[in-house]
C-alpha cells in the first residue's frame, strides 16, 4: 500500500508541476494576472507531495518490503538500520527520487519565503523550476519507477554493494545532491530574470543566499566524499580525477564563480549578463556531470547507479535544458543593459580575473573528462589522469590564489596600488620565504607541491589581512565568512601539497611478530585473527605503531567478506596525529604464510579536509550574515510602509 501511495503522490506532484508551469506562463502574459496567485501555493504543494513520496520510499526500505523491486534488488533484511535508511538513495531510482525531492522542496521553499524579488520575476522563476522538474519527473516515472512491484515478493533482498555499506553513504550523497540540485534554483532564477528582463542588484541579492546555500552543501559533500574515498578504497589517494569526482568539481567551480559575480552584481550593479550566464552554467554542469556518469558513457570507480539503457533519454533532457537555456540567453543577452563601469585596478577587476580563472579550470576539467569520449569516436581508447589535470589546472589555479591575496584588499570601483602595497607585501613575503625554505630543505620534491606549499601558506596568512584596520566586533559576518573560506582554501592546499610531497609508503610481506617502519613510525604486526560483524566476517590484523619511539597505539586494518550480497572490501585503519596520518591496509596472505601489509605516513594530510570544512564554514558565516541583513532590511521597509499608512490616515 505504501508503494502505491508513494507512486500516486509522485504522479500528483508531476501534475502540479505541469499546472505550475502553465499558470506561471499565462500569468506572465498580458491579462493573465488571475493565475498569478496560484503559482506559489502550487510550488509549495508540489514540494510537500514529493517529500511524502520520498518518505514512502524510505519507509519501504526500513520495512524491507521485498515485494518492491527496488528494495529486493538493493536491500536485505539483515542489514543494519543505518544502511537500510541510506540504501534508499544508494541506487539509481532512489537517488533520482532524492534528486527530484530536493528540486521540488527547494522550489517550494523559494515560493514560501522569497519576498525580495519582483513578483513577476518570481513567477517566471517558479515556472522555470517547474519546467526543469518536469523532465526529471518524466525520467523517473516513465523509465525509473522506484515503486515498481514484483509479481511475486522476493524471499530475500539481494543486499547493498559492500563498498557502499559505510557511514559515508548516510551523509555524502544527500549533501552532495542538495548542493547539485540546489543550483537548479540559481538556474531558474537566471531563466526567470531573463524572461522578465529583471537582471539587476535586487535579483542578485535574492539569488545570492540560494547559491551560497547550495555551494556550502556542495563543498561539504565534496570534502566528505573525498575523505570517504580516501579511507574506503584503500589506495591512500584522496582525489583521482575520476569522472564522478569531476562531475562534482565542475558545478562547484561554476558555483564559486557565480557566488563571486553575484557579489559584484549585488553591490556594484556590474557583470549582469555574466552572472546570468554563470547561473545557467552551474546547474548545467550538475546535469552534465551526473548524467554522463549515470548513462554509463563514462566509467568511474565511484559509480554505483549506472543505467546505460536510458542514455538517450538523459541526453535528450540535457539537450533540451542546457540548449534551451543557452538559446534564451542568446536571445535576451542583448537586452541586459551594460552594468556600472570600474577601473582596471579595483575589487571588480580582481573578481573578474578570478571568475575567468575559475572558468578556465572548469573548461580544462570538462575537456579532460570528455576527451576519452571524443577520441573513442575515432576509435582510440584513452584515459586522462593526474598527469594532465594537475599541471594544467595549476596554470590557472595558482594565479587565481595569488590574486585572492590581493583582491579582497581592494576598494570597489577604483583603487590606488600604493594604498595596498605594504599590506600585500606580507603574504608575498610569506610565499617567497616558504618557497625558499622548501627549495633549500627539500630540493627533491616536484615543482607543483613546492608551489602548492608556498602559495597555500601565503593564502592561509594573507586571507586574514582584509580584517586589518577594521573594528572586529563590527565587521560584518559576510566579511568574516570570506576570510575564513579563503583561509580554508589555503589550508586545504597546504594539506594536499604536503601529502603529495612528503608521503612515504611501505609495502611488505610480514609474519606475525615482524617489525617495519614508515616515515617516523615504527610498526609491529602483533596478531592476525578472524572477527565478525552484523553482516560480514573479516580477517583483522592488530598492528602497533609508535611515533618516534613514543607510546604505541593499536590499529586494526581488516579484510572484510560480506555475505549479502557476497563481496570483499578492505577496511583501512587510520591513526591521526596533528602532524599527519598513518594509514594501514591489510592485503592477502601469500603462499608462504606471510601477510601483505601496506602503510603510508602522510604528513599534514588532515589539513586537506579541515580546509574543506573551513571553506564551507566560511560560506555558512556569510549566509547567516546575508540572511540577517535581508531580514533586517525587510523589517525596516515594513516599518516605513506602516508609518506611511499611519500618516496618511492621520491626514
Amino acid at each position, binding site marked *: 500500500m505504501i508503494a502505491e501511495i508513494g507512486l500516486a503522490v509522485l504522479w500528483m506532484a508531476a501534475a502540479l508541476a505541469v499546472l505550475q508551469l502553465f499558470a506561471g506562463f499565462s500569468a506572465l502574459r498580458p491579462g493573465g494576472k488571475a493565475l498569478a496567485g496560484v503559482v506559489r501555493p502550487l510550488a509549495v504543494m508540489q514540494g510537500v507531495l514529493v517529500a511524502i513520496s520520498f518518505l514512502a520510499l524510505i519507509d519501504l526500505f526500513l520495512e524491507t518490503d521485498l515485494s518492491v523491486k527496488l528494495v529486493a534488488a538493493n536491500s536485505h533484511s539483515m542489514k543494519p538500520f543505518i544502511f537500510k535508511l541510506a540504501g534508499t538513495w544508494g541506487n539509481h531510482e532512489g537517488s533520482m527520487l532524492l534528486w527530484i525531492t530536493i528540486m521540488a522542496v527547494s522550489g517550494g521553499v523559494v515560493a514560501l519565503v522569497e519576498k525580495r524579488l519582483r513578483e513577476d520575476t518570481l513567477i517566471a522563476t517558479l515556472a522555470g523550476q517547474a519546467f526543469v522538474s518536469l523532465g526529471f519527473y518524466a525520467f523517473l516515472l516513465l523509465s525509473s519507477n522506484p515503486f515498481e512491484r514484483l509479481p511475486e515478493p522476493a524471499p530475500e533482498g539481494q543486499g547493498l554493494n559492500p563498498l557502499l555499506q559505510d557511514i559515508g553513504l548516510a551523509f555524502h550523497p544527500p549533501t552532495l545532491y542538495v548542493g547539485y540540485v540546489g543550483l537548479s534554483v540559481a538556474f531558474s532564477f537566471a531563466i526567470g530574470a531573463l524572461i522578465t528582463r529583471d537582471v539587476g542588484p535586487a535579483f542578485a541579492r535574492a539569488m545570492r543566499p540560494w547559491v551560497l546555500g547550495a555551494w556550502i552543501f556542495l563543498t561539504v559533500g565534496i570534502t566528505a566524499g573525498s575523505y570517504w574515498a580516501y579511507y574506503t578504497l584503500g589506495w591512500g589517494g584522496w582525489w583521482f580525477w575520476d569522472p564522478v569526482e569531476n562531475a562534482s568539481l565542475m558545478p562547484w567551480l561554476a558555483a564559486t564563480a557565480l557566488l563571486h559575480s553575484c557579489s559584484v552584481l549585488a553591490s556594484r550593479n556590474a557583470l549582469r549578463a555574466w552572472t546570468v550566464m554563470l547561473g545557467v552554467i552551474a546547474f548545467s554542469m550538475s546535469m552534465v556531470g551526473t548524467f554522463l556518469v549515470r548513462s554509463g558513457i563514462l566509467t568511474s570507480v565511484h559509480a554505483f547507479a549506472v543505467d546505460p539503457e536510458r542514455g538517450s533519454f538523459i541526453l535528450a533532457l540535457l539537450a533540451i535544458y542546457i540548449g534551451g537555456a543557452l538559446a534564451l540567453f542568446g536571445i535576451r543577452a542583448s537586452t541586459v543593459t551594460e552594468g556600472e*563601469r570600474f*577601473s582596471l585596478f579595483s575589487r571588480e577587476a580582481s573578481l573578474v580575473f578570478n571568475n575567468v*580563472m575559475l*572558468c578556465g579550470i572548469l573548461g580544462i576539467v570538462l575537456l579532460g573528462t570528455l576527451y576519452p569520449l571524443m577520441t573513442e569516436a575515432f576509435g582510440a581508447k584513452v*584515459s*586522462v589522469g593526474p598527469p594532465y589535470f594537475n599541471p594544467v589546472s595549476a596554470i590557472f589555479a595558482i594565479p587565481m590564489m595569488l590574486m585572492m591575496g590581493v583582491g579582497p584588499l581592494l576598494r570597489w570601483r577604483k583603487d590606488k596600488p600604493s594604498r595596498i602595497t605594504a599590506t600585500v607585501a606580507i603574504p608575498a613575503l610569506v610565499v617567497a620565504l616558504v618557497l625558499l625554505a622548501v627549495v633549500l630543505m627539500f630540493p627533491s620534491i616536484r615543482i607543483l607541491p613546492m608551489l602548492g606549499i608556498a602559495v597555500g601558506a601565503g593564502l592561509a596568512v594573507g586571507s586574514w589581512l582584509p580584517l586589518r584596520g577594521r573594528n572586529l566586533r563590527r565587521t560584518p559576518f559576510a566579511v568574516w565568512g570570506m576570510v575564513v573560506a579563503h583561509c580554508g582554501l589555503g589550508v586545504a592546499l597546504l594539506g594536499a601539497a604536503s601529502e603529495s610531497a612528503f608521503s612515504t609508503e611501505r609495502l611488505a610481506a610480514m609474519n606475525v611478530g615482524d617489525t617495519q617502519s614508515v616515515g617516523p613510525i615504527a610498526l609491529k604486526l602483533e596478531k592476525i585473527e578472524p572477527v565478525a560483524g552484523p553482516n560480514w566476517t573479516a580477517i583483522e590484523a592488530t598492528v602497533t605503531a609508535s611515533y618516534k619511539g613514543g607510546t604505541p597505539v593499536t590499529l586494526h586494518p581488516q579484510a572484510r567478506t560480506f555475505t549479502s550480497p557476497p563481496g570483499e572490501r578492505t577496511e583501512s585503519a587510520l591513526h591521526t596525529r596533528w602532524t599527519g596520518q598513518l594509514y594501514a591496509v591489510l592485503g592477502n596472505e601469500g603462499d608462504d604464510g606471510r601477510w*601483505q601489509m*601496506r602503510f603510508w605516513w602522510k604528513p599534514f594530510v588532515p589539513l586537506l579536509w579541515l580546509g574543506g570544512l573551513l571553506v564551507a564554514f566560511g560560506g555558512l558565516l556569510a549566509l547567516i550574515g546575508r540572511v540577517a541583513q535581508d531580514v533586517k532590511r525587510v523589517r525596516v521597509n515594513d516599518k516605513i510602509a506602516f508609518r506611511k499608512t499611519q500618516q496618511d490616515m492621520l491626514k
Partner: protein
Amino acid sequence: MSSNPSGGIKPKHQRLVLIIVALVALVGAGLLAAYALSNQASYFYVPADLVKAPPEQGRAIRLGGMVEKGSLKTRSDGITIDFIVGDGKARVPVRYTGITPDLFVEASGVVAEGRMEGQTFVADNLLAKHDENYVPRQMGDMTPEQAKQVVAETQ
C-alpha cells in the same frame, strides 16, 4: 577597463573588453588543454597492439587482457608479482608491486595501468573484476570473437 571610470570609456566598450578577456582566457585554456591532452592521455592497449606497435618507453598506458593460467608468480619479497597478460595473439609479461585487488586471479580479465620498461609492462595499479556484474569497460569493449579467443586461449 579604463583608468578613469567616471569618464572616457563607454560602458559598451567595457563590456566588449570583458568579453574579449574572457574569450582569450577560455580559448587559451582550450588550446592548452588540447596540447596537454595529446601528450598526457594514456592509451589503452591489448597485447596484440602492444607487440605490433610498441609505445615509447616510460609513457603511461593501460594494458587489458587475460591473466594467463599458471603464469602468476610471487617474488621472494612477498609483494611483487609477475604474470603474463595475453589476448590470444600476443603475450606480455607484467610486473606489479602491491596488494592485488580481491578478485584478481588467473584466467580472468585485468586492466593494468603502468608503462613499458624494456619488454616488461610495469603496473602501478591493477583493475580487476570487482564482482560478477562488474567488468572493466575496456574488457567489455573487446569484440565477442576477441573475448572468446581470449577465454579459449587461457582455459
